């Protein structure tokens, strides 16, 4: 019994330093689950269409299809229980030749969407950090 408590304490102590997210909700839950992600993606689509710096790229986009894929994608990258049914990132953005600048514009729009969705900053940063890792698969394709 006391050994078990000791182990628990040790695990908790270790977690303070190393794995602050372990006992917490998954990122998917922190995003507000499927509903939260749906709100976020809807807001993102509004933002990119309203951003003259990149709206041209989305001019012919089938929003309903894009919304469904982006929801799945974010759900999956946030450790939710979803299967992304769209194209791999390089294929999804091939032929667009997205520049580093345009990537940044998208990130800014996405940040605005996360703010409108009232996501806490820590959650925003956790999600953004995961998406930022994909930049090389998205730019200059």
């Amino acid at each position: 019994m006391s050994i078990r408590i000791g182990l628990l304490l040790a695990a908790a102590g270790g977690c303070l330093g190393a794995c602050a997210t372990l006992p917490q909700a998954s990122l998917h839950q922190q995003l507000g689950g499927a509903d939260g992600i749906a709100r976020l993606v809807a807001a993102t689509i509004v933002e990119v269409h309203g951003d003259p710096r990149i709206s041209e790229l989305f001019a012919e986009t089938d929003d309903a299809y894009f919304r469904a894929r982006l929801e799945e994608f974010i759900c999956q990258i946030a450790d939710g229980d979803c299967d992304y049914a769209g194209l791999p990132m390089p294929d999804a953005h091939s032929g667009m030749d997205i520049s580093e600048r345009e990537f940044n514009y998208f990130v800014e729009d996405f940040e605005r969407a996360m703010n409108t969705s009232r996501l806490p900053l820590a959650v925003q940063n956790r999600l953004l950090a995961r998406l930022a890792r994909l930049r090389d698969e998205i730019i200059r394709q």
Partner: protein
Amino acid sequence: MRVGWAWLLLLSSLAAAAADGRLLGSGGLLSVEGSAGGGLVPWAVIAGHSGQGQWDALASASVVDSGDFDLRTGALALGWNNRMELSFARMSLGLDALVQANRFPDKRLDTDVIGAKLRLGGDLVYGRAPQFAAGLQWRRSRDADLASLAGADNDRGYDVYLSASKLWIDGIASRRTLASLTLRSTDANQLGLAGFSDQRSITLESSLAVFLDPNWLVGIEYRGKPDRLASAREDAWSDVFLAWLPSRHWHLALGYADLGSIGGFPGQRGYYLSVQGSP
């Protein structure tokens, strides 16, 4: 300072459109010697927010006042393409303590710094590697006769430095966190305000900063310095700062700096204030 703002207007006409290619704050602030970074040390970032094909122009004014001394800087910088930075700074040291002790004529000690910085590779925010940059700072004392009173060998010199900086989006407490390290070879005494030595020194500088939110940055900095003058000890500098970045166009920083011993007066500490504007 008036000259500085006139320059800014001129430079802003060069900048075709406001540079918006990078995340807010990713250009740091103009330091006391004009190079982009924290208040006292350069980072591997290019001043401003220029992305591919963009220019950015910046001007800043800052003051550190320790009571016995005050250091004022007016600086201008150009950032291009998130690749290259050119800067000019005029540092001016007020010598109240020395003047009152009748050890110096009643005059400020001015030193100019022309800086160039090149991003060698990597990206501050994206990818695993940090961003690397190499920089040059040419310095010239405008009051060489006074600097030589302090025992300096030369009235001009140059620094070469290498910086590595990284920003983690999901850093400390899931806040954006920036760490930076700079290795410098310098012949300047007190940044050149006390002239230059024949002998060069290698120094190490570092910063750690956390974005409380995208508009507020707190940080600490440390700047190793040489200690070569027999007449007066020179110490490392350090500071803590809080910067407010309401937009790409305005940055404001308030800090508390420890400048160690200056001109034989130990324990020089005081507030640091810096304002930066960009079109």
